[in-house]
């Protein structure tokens, strides 16, 4: 019995750390996103609250929390309020198996990659419940789109991840990192460029980010699945979206960019650097490309990503067998 206590403490610390890390990331990314958008449009972005608007996301958060929680008439209150929580809760779990450093891993599990892929699927359920529970046709339309999109993009994402798993022979994230070298040419991105491209594109689709943010296409739908949500109901979806972004970028940097390994001095700083570089590419893309149409979105997926990912997987399997 006593043998489990250190493990339990480790787990609790990891969960608390993950929660803090998630909240911090959400604040940081909101700020970065707005600043980045501002500078691309050659305006300063948030500027008034705190030096260079640094307190803006905090104030936004306070504002969101102070708003009234409204349940629309005729909505299913249980499903309606379950949805944002369901969208938020698994995110914390997703942070656990990511190796931020040799010892900075929340939960060392053999099936870490599988855990992430499995639990990130929860988000789809949350979106569906949100759209269904709010008793609003825009909500349902948005949810239907979100589900169609997430399900579609999950497949090429999985296939490209699988190619890496085939190559390294493991689903343990630390193990995958360990098999890559310190220098860029020793990373998986060199051996699996196609998988990397497919992963990058699916990443946008999976996290509902522009140019694939059709689940909340505010020019076509009123707002998508979260039309009816006020206050922290919306806030949780929002935070979850940023949470998933960080997770998927971390996974990408572990799988393809060598995780916490870097040319000089391995450590969590490399991991952070790579993750944030990817996040910036995501933000950059959002302010560069216009939104695609829904049929184009599905066409890109079914006609290009899926065959490419399948081909890549088969080729990897073939080469590994040789």
């Amino acid at each position, binding site marked *: 019995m006593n043998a489990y206590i250190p493990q339990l403490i480790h787990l609790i610390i990891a969960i608390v750390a993950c929660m803090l890390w998630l909240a911090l990331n959400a604040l940081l990314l909101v700020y970065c996103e707005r600043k*980045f958008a501002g*500078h*691309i*449009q*050659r*305006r*300063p972005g948030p*500027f008034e609250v705190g030096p260079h608007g640094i307190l803006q996301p905090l104030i936004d958060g306070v504002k969101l929390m102070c708003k009234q929680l409204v349940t629309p008439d005729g909505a299913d209150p249980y499903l309606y309020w379950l949805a944002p929580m369901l969208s938020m809760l698994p995110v914390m779990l997703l942070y656990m198996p990511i190796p931020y450093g040799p010892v900075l891993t929340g939960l060392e599990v053999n099936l870490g990659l599988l855990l992430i892929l499995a639990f990130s699927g929860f988000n789809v359920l949350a979106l569906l419940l949100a759209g269904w529970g709010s008793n609003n046709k825009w909500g349902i339309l948005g949810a239907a789109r979100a589900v169609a999109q997430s399900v579609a993009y999950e497949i090429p994402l999985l296939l490209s991840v699988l190619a890496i798993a085939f190559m390294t022979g493991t689903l343990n994230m630390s193990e995958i990192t360990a098999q890559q070298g310190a220098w860029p040419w020793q990373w998986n991105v060199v051996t699996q460029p196609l998988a990397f491209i497919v992963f990058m594109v699916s990443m946008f689709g999976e996290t509902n980010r522009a140019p694939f943010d059709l689940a909340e296409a505010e020019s076509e739908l009123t707002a998508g699945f979260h039309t009816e949500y006020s206050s922290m109901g919306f806030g949780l979806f929002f935070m979850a979206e940023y949470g998933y972004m960080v997770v998927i970028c971390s996974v990408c940097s572990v799988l393809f960019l060598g995780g916490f390994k870097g040319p000089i001095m391995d450590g969590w700083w490399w991991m952070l650097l790579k993750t944030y570089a990817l996040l910036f590419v995501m933000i*950059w*893309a959002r*302010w*560069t*490309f216009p939104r695609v149409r829904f049929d184009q979105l599905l066409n890109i997926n079914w006609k*290009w990503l899926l065959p490419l990912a399948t081909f890549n997987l088969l080729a990897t399997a073939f080469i590994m067998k040789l």
Partner: protein
Amino acid sequence: MNAFRKHILQPIIDCWSLFVGFGVTGKYFCNKLVTVHYPRQTVEEENLDTYGGHIELVGKPKDPAMPKCISCMMCVTNCPSKCLTVVKQKPPKPTPEQEKAMKEAEEKGEKVSKPKAPKNPAKFIYDYSLCSLCGTCIENCPTKSLRYSSNFYWVASDRKELKLDLLARLREQAKSMPASAPKAEAKPAKAEKEA
């Protein structure tokens, strides 16, 4: 072969445009900001030239206090928001001598020349709170007597304050104008024509 080109090769080549897009926004990201931090800084004069604020009257080149307007009512009829009110001037009352002369002329069967009303309007009221800044009045004015102003720092706490007497405004502008007024006047008018 053609189908291969169209469906396979071209999309791959088109992917290059994504990087071109990244290049464009990346360049803007590194450029200097163009936004003005309003309360701390003010907009430079040359940037105000292209600003299309509320409508204002244009004075005659020789007499800047007098609008070019001929009270033709084109702007009033064409304004979709009905925010302009132009009141024509009444013809001046004829003096007794003139009246006498007119009567005599009538008796002789000659053409009577009644005194004409001055063309410039008696009143030119504009309600900014209704205006959609569509520019229809500017386009339709036969004498080019209207233009967008560059009055940019204008705040009101009541919508009634947004009702402007444009004639009074023109007189104010003429008063504060330097001696070389006509020249300064000509420039915005030209810019407006180009627009």
